[in-house]
């Protein structure tokens, strides 16, 4: 009977360890991001990156980047495309959910900022000193990227992913 109890206890303990490993695996990701082309015009395209990670203090690092790219030697979106000042825009938004999921709620947003120099990229980053919307929560980033085509703003929103969530603080 005792060996049966021990076997049962050992099996349940193994289940517990496995389950905690799954949970820890979700929580301990260091950098969570998505990137890719989100818009096209002429021989140019818009490439974006949205990221959430630990940051320098472990309290959260949020990044949204917008790049203008162009076709090179027949390769689509292979090279940087320099755009005049003001022709690339980026907005950084970050959201939170509680430890066990729940709806996605806006935490903070930057303004929609424009490039101020001749450039192929406008990236906005925020390295938080404290978890901006509380501790022991999941965070995710949503970036808005736009490039001026000459007639319209081209680009989109891009999230750091699903399940592109990051647990803070680290």
């Amino acid at each position, binding site marked *: *009977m005792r060996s*049966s109890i021990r076997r*049962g*206890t050992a099996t349940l303990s193994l*289940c517990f360890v496995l*389950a905690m490993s*799954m*949970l820890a695996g*979700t929580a301990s990701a260091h950098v969570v991001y998505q*990137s*890719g082309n*989100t818009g096209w015009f002429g021989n140019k395209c818009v490439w974006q990156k*949205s990221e959430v990670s630990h940051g320098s203090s472990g309290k959260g690092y949020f990044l949204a*980047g917008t*790049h203008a790219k162009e076709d090179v030697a027949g390769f689509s979106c292979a090279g*940087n495309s320099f755009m005049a000042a003001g022709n*690339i825009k980026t*907005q950084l938004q*970050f*959201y*939170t*959910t*509680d*430890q*066990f*999921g*729940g*709806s*996605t*709620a*806006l*935490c*903070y*947003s*930057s*303004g929609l*900022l424009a*490039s*101020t120099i001749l*450039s*192929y*990229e406008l*990236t*906005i*980053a*925020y390295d*938080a*000193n404290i978890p*901006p*919307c*509380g501790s022991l*929560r999941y965070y995710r980033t949503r970036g*808005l990227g736009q490039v001026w085509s000459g007639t319209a703003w081209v680009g989109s929103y*891009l*999230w*750091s*992913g*699903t*399940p*592109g969530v990051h647990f803070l603080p680290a």
Partner: protein
Amino acid sequence: MRNVNGFSRRTLALTAGVVLMLSAIAGTAVAQRSGSDWIGPDGRENAATAPDFLGVADESGRPARCADGGLVRVPLSGIPADVPVFDATGKAYPSMAAAQESTNQRIANGDINVTGNTNSGQVVHLGAEDVFRPSVSALCERFGSEK
């Protein structure tokens, strides 16, 4: 008999613990999926299934609520330009447009660390004065709450 009962109690307690824990984990997964089914694994939004509004978190991260107890709603497009906001230091701005202009001024004045020169990439390192949360009361008044 005591052994059998002891075994049963112990097994029941352990089983209940594991079931509770697995339920919590499953709850996490389900909630994340159900709350994000309009966001693809590649981070792209599905316009056909995206909601018109999202929630707003209070300073501790809990969903902010209007005076009627319903959840605060912010348009999917973000904080409207004319809605009052607060930065992460607590400073109030009369509108999101004014807050954005404040960041632009800080960039122009060299108060924000901007890396990159002409003919390169440009990276703006925001401070706590450059990220903004909307006024809950203004959003409640404008868009109502979600019950």
